């Protein structure tokens, strides 16, 4: 637990100091929103559906960028090797990288929710609060998957290209569940109406976090 806390604290300190990941994620989210608003030209009756879709598109692409940058930071000066040699549990390292990626994505999503509210003419209020469970569960699952895959891709020459190719197909079921539950929330339905979709997101979170904790040691080990 001490190693988990130390690595997470280090990642947050570095990010607060540089702001690189958060600024990049926010800028990417903003651009995605702008492109989608012009591309979809949302009509009043479709705003909830289009807003939910835009939010998840932004989350997935910003999440990939965030996870990649997090692992690139560990590869700077070979620091990942130092962590591998140290007596820490690889699962604690994975947990800390996941927690950091989740924190960065969550900060950006708060901004993204504000952006879709503006761009898609949604109302601030209870509907947005009902978005929180699906967004948090989706973010956690995607951070878990992207952290594991970013560790793989960061060790390959074309890592930036490989990550989306690996991550998006694996995350599609969660994206469907997330968009459906978010659309339900933005349409004003109670949380219970999307319980099946939330259940799928929880199952994905459990699956990806477990896989990550078990596989991370093998992923970061060199040949």
């Amino acid at each position, binding site marked *: 637990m*001490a*190693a988990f806390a*130390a690595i997470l604290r280090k990642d947050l300190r570095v990010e607060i100091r540089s702001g690189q990941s958060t600024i990049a994620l926010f800028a990417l989210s903003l651009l995605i929103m702008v492109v989608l608003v012009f591309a979809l030209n949302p009509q009043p009756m479709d705003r909830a559906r289009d807003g939910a879709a835009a939010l998840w598109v932004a989350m997935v692409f910003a999440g990939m960028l965030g996870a990649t940058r997090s692992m690139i930071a560990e590869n700077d000066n070979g620091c990942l090797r*130092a962590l591998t040699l*140290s*007596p820490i549990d690889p699962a604690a390292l994975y947990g800390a990288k996941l927690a950091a990626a989740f924190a960065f994505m969550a900060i950006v999503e708060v901004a993204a929710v504000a952006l879709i509210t503006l761009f898609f003419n949604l109302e601030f209020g209870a509907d947005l609060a009902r978005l929180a469970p699906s967004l948090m569960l989706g973010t956690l699952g995607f951070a878990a998957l992207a952290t594991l895959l970013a560790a793989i891709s960061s060790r390959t020459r074309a890592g930036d290209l490989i990550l989306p190719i690996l991550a998006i197909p694996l995350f599609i079921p969660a994206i469907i569940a997330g968009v459906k539950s978010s659309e339900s929330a933005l349409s004003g339905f109670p949380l219970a109406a999307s319980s099946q979709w939330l259940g799928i997101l929880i199952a994905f979170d459990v699956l990806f976090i477990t896989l990550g904790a078990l596989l991370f040691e093998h992923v970061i*080990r*060199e040949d």
Partner: protein
Amino acid sequence: MAKPAVETRALTKTFGVTPVLRNVAMLIDAGACAMVIGGNGSGKSTLLRILAGLSQPTSGDAIVFGENSRSLAAARRRIGMLTHQSWLYPNLTARENLEFYGELYGLTHREELATKWIDAVGLAASSNDRVREFSRGMEQRLSIARAMMMGPDLLLLDEPFAALDPAGVAIVGDLIRAAIARGCTALITAHSPLELGVDIARYEISNGRVIPMRDELRPRSRMGA
């Protein structure tokens, strides 16, 4: 005879079809100092990475404090390593870097230890500067501090004097001698033979083979069978 700290048995490593290490058999007794000398790309760094468990041998074994390097457990804590990469975070200060690694190793009194080691490598005036502002030589000094502050029983030092000015060479030389004096085993790589003022068993690495240098006294380190 002292128990070996490091032993390799028919250790071979290939990258693709290119052999880098061929049937390396070495024994380094606990508390001994050995030096592997070779040119660029001769396999020195690969040998150290395998001993630290950071890279897997293609065949053969490397045994460190009785543990196979393929699955180092308790022995990992006993290794201090210096590589061509500094293993330092550019956006953290020198002090923050050392305290971070100290926390990973469960060290108590991390602030005092960080101060002690930053002073020891002559970086007291820069302890609160970010590493990204450091010169290569300053990074090398701080990397030495990082490797030594855990009190390792085995030092794997890949060209420890690279990029250092004469003052840095003297400081790092003193630190290595002090570590050996307290019983630490050291395996050092270099491009050419170095004098450290201690008994050193020198080996040459060439074409993937590690052989003792001619006329070399090897009082506490020896080639394996």
